[in-house]
């Protein structure tokens, strides 16, 4: 949820500090580590340009939208403990105007994250910069179009901020032979006027337990806004991948002042079917059920945040065909039910994940 109203006091504070001075301090402080981190060993990690590109046609309640997007990710490892990573989003959403005519629309540009990671020890990674808000699992792990099994966003995704600017501590470690604990805590202290770098002033965190034997993960998230209504948001999530079935199950629940809701989705790879095996092992069946309950804000305010204006239920079913590694074709159909009227949701498209080295990789 991005707030566009900034208090005069905060604006004044921001104007009093020179960003160039802050950058200079940052560069001077990190220079020794960066210089010492440069190595030329042949097995050292190399910078990478990766990411995804996709083209989709969404038909929502009879309205067609052509959606083309590129999401480049830059990964620059430094030494054994540092990583600079960034992801941008360029997305064109084109529709016909209400009176008819050619397709047209804006091309949105957004910086999802630009962060410096320091892997301090096996238990702790320190992250500075702009990062994906660790709330639930969809935003951080399932958002890329080549990963998600259904291309429509879950209804409750806008309940927490997608990106935050500040500092985060995170890590994962085994607590015993049967369980791993993961955590992330953060403070988002910067809120800029720049459209592509906006974030809320907030604190929050997430904690999860993963049982590798049964491949079950459960966790909880919390976020507190330190501006506007100083509201709290919390949520729970789960992931399950049974050992004997090529099935991936995920679910999430979130509650905040604008509303609450849940989604449950599953994706089943048909690789165990004995007929047409060459085709079936590339085919995945996916489904999602979700529900959103309106909260303490009005319909227009909710829609401004990207949430439904009224209580809404939705079911979606889709097929993904993996043409080759990183390239998949997707088609899905969904039905949305609300007091504003029911509607059909059709999606057809293709998603591609690329990865290119930005240096010599040898054989």
């Amino acid at each position, binding site marked *: 949820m991005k707030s566009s109203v900034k208090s005069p006091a905060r604006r004044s504070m921001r104007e009093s500090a020179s960003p160039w001075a802050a950058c200079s*301090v940052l560069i001077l402080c990190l220079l020794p580590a960066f210089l010492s981190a440069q190595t030329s060993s042949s*097995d050292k*990690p190399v910078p*990478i340009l990766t990411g995804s590109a996709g083209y989709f046609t969404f038909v929502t309640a009879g309205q067609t939208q052509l959606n083309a997007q590129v999401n480049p990710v830059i990964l620059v490892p430094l030494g054994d403990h540092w990583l600079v990573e960034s992801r941008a989003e360029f997305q064109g959403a084109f529709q016909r105007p209400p009176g008819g005519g050619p397709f047209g629309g804006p091309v949105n540009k957004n910086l999802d994250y630009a962060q410096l990671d320091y892997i*301090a020890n096996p238990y702790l990674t320190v992250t500075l910069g702009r990062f994906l808000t660790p709330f639930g699992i969809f935003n951080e*792990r399932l958002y890329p179009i080549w990963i998600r099994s259904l291309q429509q966003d879950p209804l409750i995704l806008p309940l927490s901020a997608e990106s935050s600017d500040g500092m985060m501590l995170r890590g*994962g470690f085994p607590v015993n032979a049967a369980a*791993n604990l993961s955590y992330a805590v953060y403070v988002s202290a910067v809120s800029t006027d720049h459209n592509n770098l906006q974030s809320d002033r907030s604190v929050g965190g997430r904690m999860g337990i993963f049982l590798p034997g049964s491949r079950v993960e459960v966790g909880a998230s919390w976020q507190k806004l330190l501006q506007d209504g100083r509201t709290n948001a919390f949520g729970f999530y789960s992931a399950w991948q049974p050992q004997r079935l090529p099935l991936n199950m995920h679910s999430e629940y979130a509650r905040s002042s604008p509303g609450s809701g849940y989604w449950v989705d599953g994706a089943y790879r048909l690789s165990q079917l004995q007929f047409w095996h060459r085709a079936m092992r590339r085919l995945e069946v996916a489904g999602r059920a979700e529900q959103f309950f309106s909260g303490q804000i009005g319909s227009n305010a909710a829609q401004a945040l990207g949430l439904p204006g009224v209580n809404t239920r939705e079911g979606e079913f889709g097929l993904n065909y993996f043409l080759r590694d990183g390239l998949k074709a997707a088609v899905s159909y969904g039905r949305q039910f609300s007091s504003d009227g029911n509607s059909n949701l059709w999606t057809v498209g293709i998603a591609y994940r690329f990865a290119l*080295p930005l240096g010599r990789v040898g054989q």
Partner: protein
Amino acid sequence: MRLAIIIAGWALALLSVMGVAADSPRNNAPTTPVAQNSAQAEAMRFEGEKRFRANCGRCHAAPQKFPPRMMATIVRHMRVRATITDEDTRLVLFYMTQ
């Protein structure tokens, strides 16, 4: 605000020194483990595949294997993104570079 910048500067300087210290020869940097013999390598590859399926398969299908220097970067990125443990990171990297 100046105080905040000074504190942030000192914090970064401290992190910077920690980074230099961590790059010394006696650090335990997360690199690919080395197998002493073929039996141990096979056991590590098996364990790495198991960890790969448990950790990476929770979110996405198995990708192709990239060159080792690319895999090292990708696995480091995923260690941060998916909060994978240090041991799992090492074994997954071993499996993905064999």
